[in-house]
């Protein structure tokens, strides 16, 4: 009875307040629910003490590359005037040409074994060694003290007190120790829920002429990098919902870490969405799911390295990342070297720029108000994909777009200036050099619909609902580019080995006269800080694609530069 009385009293409170609302302008509805504490968006990790010296920890050693030679090679690989233009090399050749020598590798191996460190895996491109050792050995060998922590969400992780130092005897071959700090793990570039009604991407972004020409991904191969497990029943339901052919992704996991383990309903949304959007855009393409657990060593770098070693896919879509300032500095070169080996092989990579707008660290640390961008989106080897809000006409055709910005929810199109990378020479187009430019890499490169209210209809957890985030825009771009490559093949350009790093081509197309306008220029709105302007801008990059027009321009570009 007491309970019923309490409920009744709370209802009376609510009804009284409602009456007040109706009587007075600007009144508020009140909650029936009493609260004990205010909701908080922030929290700090709690130190739990030193890591047990016997605990086995996985981490990685970043191998030195002949960086000057590699830079020269990559520049030539993407310079249309160079005889090396698009002469891609496989992972083994990459390792032989730019990695440490076989003898040096053997010496490192012997020394690690003697110190009690076991090599668990490596790839032929020799960008990193994946290793396992007791915490006590790590402490001794690299001059740190491994500590255990509890994250605000209860997750336990370890991190070193102090910066790991590579011993002198290894330093000729090993440049850094990565994967020891588990505080900030990559997060999916958001999957906000809600909204009403799906967008119609094919119509809005002008894919229909490609479909009409029979370009739907036949014979093409595309991959995603995923740190959570998708649900096959969701993919099946999606196919049924939209009348698509069945999709069964081919799962690939780095052998020593195994597949992604995260299968909570909230987490399967990301891989479900990535796979479904790719399948929706390129329904006949073969899809690979490069996946591993969301740990510092099982994550993005290793899966990119695996894709580079395999050489199976032409395009890779990555909807995961972390703001540059929160990334462990040792982890960045490992991922970046994996990216370099992938683009040397001809794999094109699209990465979501994140969903916190200009404040790239805010998602992981809500009280962090730094202007920041996300990595690996900021890597010069990838196409960073930002987000928009799309408006279509009643017939479904493109109408207009603004940058995606939700200031109250602290979300928006990731974009800004990198602190890790200089502005590459190819990043030139109308608007690139602007009042915010400081010589650093600028993001995003391109954009597409990321607003859940105008976004993508998906199935996850057995439910159909609209979805968004730059992690939705990214697989859309990746799959669209796959179709463009197929279209190029159809028009006599050999893209079987892929097109590799796309930015030099996209920026050239954006900044020179073309057969058809390739991008929708987005000129009104902000990403919570940087305004959208004519040409390139920090909110939406070069703009969103008119895919059919871009396909024609890509073919024209490749033919003009002797690609056959």
């Amino acid at each position, binding site marked *: 009875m007491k309970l019923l009385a309490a409920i009744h009293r709370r209802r*009376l409170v609510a009804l009284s307040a409602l009456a007040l609302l109706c009587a007075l302008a*600007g009144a*508020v509805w*009140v*909650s029936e629910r009493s609260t004990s504490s205010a909701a908080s968006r922030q929290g700090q990790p709690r130190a739990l003490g030193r890591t047990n010296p016997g605990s086995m920890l996985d981490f990685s050693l970043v191998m030195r590359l002949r960086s000057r030679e590699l830079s020269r090679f990559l520049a030539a690989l993407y310079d249309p005037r160079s005889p090396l233009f698009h002469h891609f090399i496989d992972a083994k050749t990459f390792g032989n040409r730019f990695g440490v020598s076989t003898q040096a590798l053997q010496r490192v191996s012997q020394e690690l074994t003697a110190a009690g460190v076991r090599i668990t895996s490596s790839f032929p491109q020799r960008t990193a060694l994946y290793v396992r050792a007791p915490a006590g050995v790590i402490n001794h060998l690299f001059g740190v003290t491994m500590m255990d922590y509890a994250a605000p969400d209860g997750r336990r992780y370890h991190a070193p007190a102090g910066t790991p130092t590579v011993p002198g005897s290894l330093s000729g071959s090993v440049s850094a120790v990565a994967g020891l700090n588990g505080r900030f793990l990559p997060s999916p570039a958001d999957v906000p829920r809600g909204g009403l009604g799906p967008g119609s991407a094919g119509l809005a972004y002008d894919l229909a002429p490609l479909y009409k020409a029979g370009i739907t991904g036949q014979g093409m191969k595309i991959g995603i990098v995923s740190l959570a497990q998708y649900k096959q029943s969701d993919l099946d339901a999606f196919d049924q919902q939209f009348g698509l052919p069945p999709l069964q992704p081919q799962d690939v996991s780095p052998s020593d870490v195994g597949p992604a383990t995260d299968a909570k309903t909230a987490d399967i949304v990301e891989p479900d969405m990535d796979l479904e959007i790719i399948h929706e855009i390129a329904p006949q393409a073969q899809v690979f799911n490069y996946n591993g657990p969301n740990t510092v060593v099982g994550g993005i770098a290793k899966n990119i390295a695996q894709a580079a070693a395999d050489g199976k896919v032409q395009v890779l879509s990555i909807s995961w990342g972390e703001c540059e300032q929160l990334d462990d500095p040792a982890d960045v070169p490992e991922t970046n070297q994996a990216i370099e080996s992938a683009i040397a092989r001809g794999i094109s990579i699209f990465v979501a720029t994140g969903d916190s707008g200009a404040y790239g660290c805010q998602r992981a640390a809500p009280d962090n108000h730094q202007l920041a961008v996300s990595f690996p989106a900021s890597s010069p080897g990838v196409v960073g994909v930002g987000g928009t809000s799309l408006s279509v*006409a009643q017939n479904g055709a493109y109408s207009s777009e603004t940058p995606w910005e939700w200031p109250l*929810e*602290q979300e928006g199109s990731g974009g800004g200036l990198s602190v890790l990378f200089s502005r590459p020479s190819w990043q030139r187009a109308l608007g690139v050099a602007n009042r915010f430019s400081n010589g650093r890499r600028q993001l995003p490169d391109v954009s597409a619909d990321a607003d859940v209210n105008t976004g993508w209809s998906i199935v996850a957890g057995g439910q159909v609902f609209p979805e968004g985030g730059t992690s939705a825009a990214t697989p859309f771009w990746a799959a669209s580019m796959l179709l463009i490559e197929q279209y190029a093949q159809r028009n006599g350009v050999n893209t079987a080995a892929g097109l590799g790093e796309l930015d030099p081509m996209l920026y050239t197309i954006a900044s020179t006269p073309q*057969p058809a306008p390739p991008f929708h220029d987005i000129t009104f709105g902000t990403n919570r*800080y940087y305004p959208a302007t004519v040409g390139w801008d920090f909110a939406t990059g070069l703009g969103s694609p008119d895919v059919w027009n871009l396909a024609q321009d890509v073919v024209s570009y490749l033919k003009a530069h002797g690609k056959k």
Partner: protein
Amino acid sequence: MTAAGPPVPDSAIVATGVRGANIRHQLRALTAGRLGGSGTVVAFIAGFVAVIGIGVAVVAIVAPSTKPLCQPYKPCGTPPRAGPPMINFTLWRSPQFGYTLEYPSNVATVAQQSSDGLTFGVKLQNGDQATIIVRAASTSQVSPSQGVTNLLGNLNGVTQIASDPSAADQILGATIGHRPGTGGAYVGSITSPQGVSNSAGLGAEAATDGRVTIVAVAVGAQSDAGTQTELYDLADFILESVQWAS
């Protein structure tokens, strides 16, 4: 010298009917002949003009028409006819100020409306209720920051309004209808007529197009982060759907 201009001497050679001889020799002979009499010169000029004219005509007919290239970020060709915009939600227009906004009427119900704005009642998924208020005024009378102050000062049923001290809750990049403005996060108490108080979270934003100031506040109980996310998602949608009259 082998040729003065690409096709002309060859044509002239054919026209003179001389065949099977050394070209160099023929050219010399032709040149000598041209210099020898005005009739030959006239005939040569006439032939020259005729050949050029025919060539131009043939090129104009046979050559494919080249479409002019599109210049970067400039309008190009005939813009496609997109037709009227798709409106998925309920559209409301301010009779006084002309701006429009959209709202999902199955989630947000209009509790009150006036010529300058609306008050929405919002029932959240956990049963909590919340409010989103949108108002407008002439910018010459009310600036965006004044608008926020005025709206917060006139909220009935919410007391003890103060700036939210948590850095994590701050509103960065406030906009309405994609126009940058001002905004802030606040806390307060929702007090019922029976005197029962709940702590409240408020997010306020305001912007102007130079003529009209639009100001908005979203108010809900601070029960958990999920309810605030739900309320702010909806408020963001409504406020970014604003189409300014100017």
